[in-house]
């Protein structure tokens, strides 16, 4: 019997008030996760981060490649306490930014976990990043946003989580 691959909406939220981070903790039964963020920030600050399972240890590293309209900016960080997945500037009340965060094979309990992110904010930055969480634990929750920082999700930001179920 053939199966149909699915790309299913798990959760979606439109923020009624500003908040620093958004968390998801209920997404069993899929192979990969995709989180689509459409947001603004009204406070200054650039880093936009990801943390798995509440792990605050220095177990993250990331490499990124971005451009600000003038310069090409490559970079990497290691042994950080959250995965820096994007640079989204604050202080632009109506300047939408979007991110697509791919969390691959999140439920496996054998390998370290990866996140691939593509981010766009037309007034400031376009880029992509790849990050690693050095834990073989299955991902059961994740938090995104201004982790350890002050720049917020503004009210009206839309965050949607999709699950992809691979077929054999």
């Amino acid at each position, binding site marked *: 019997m053939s199966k*149909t*691959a*699915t*790309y*299913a*909406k798990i959760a*979606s939220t439109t923020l009624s008030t500003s908040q620093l981070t958004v968390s998801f903790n209920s997404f069993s039964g899929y192979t990969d996760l995709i989180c*689509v*963020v*459409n947001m*603004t920030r009204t406070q200054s600050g650039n880093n936009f981060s990801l943390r798995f399972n509440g792990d605050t240890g220095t177990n993250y590293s990331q490499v990124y*490649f*971005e*451009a*600000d*309209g*003038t*310069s*090409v*900016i490559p970079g990497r960080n290691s042994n950080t306490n959250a995965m820096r997945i994007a640079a989204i500037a604050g202080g632009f009340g*109506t*300047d*939408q*930014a*979007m991110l*697509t965060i791919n969390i691959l094979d999140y439920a496996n309990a054998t390998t370290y976990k990866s996140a691939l992110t*593509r*981010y*766009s*904010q*037309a*007034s*400031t*930055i*376009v*880029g*992509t990043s790849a990050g690693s969480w050095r834990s073989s634990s299955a991902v059961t929750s994740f938090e995104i946003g201004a982790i350890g920082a002050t720049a917020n999700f503004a009210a*009206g930001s*839309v965050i*949607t989580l*999709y*699950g992809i*179920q691979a077929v054999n």
Partner: protein
Amino acid sequence: MPLQLYKIASVEVGSGGQSSVTFSSIPQGYTDLKLVFSARSTRANAVEDLLISLNGNNTGMTNRNIYGDGSSATATTQGGANILTNGNSSTANTFGNGEIYIPNYAGSTNKSISIDTVSENNATTAYAQMVAFIKPNTDAITSVTLSSNSSSSFMQYSTFTLYGIL
């Protein structure tokens, strides 16, 4: 679980070519839009520079753009143009590919657009590109148009497919 990536419409350019491709009367019931294309234009150059228009215009659109050509990477900022695909001086029978993602297209905020493209060419002139666009207008998007910035036409077998993501 239901499939939540729905094909809204698709266009395959015929033998006469086509100066632009428009998806109009876009249903407003999805969350995001994804437009994928495989294109080649009549421009006498290895690469074509496409324009994107939303609701019939690209007024006020700006972008941050990064592209690599195999030897260096360049960062630019521009108005409504600068989406790269294949021109007619690229390797024969070869088309560039791209994906245009528009989140929250039916909402009442300014519209951000994320675009990834490659132009394919068995030669030294080929590009991989990422673009962040914004259209500073809060109207819901009801139409999307792609056209040449050099007044060229899309060639036969160019394809464009619009998906709604629920």
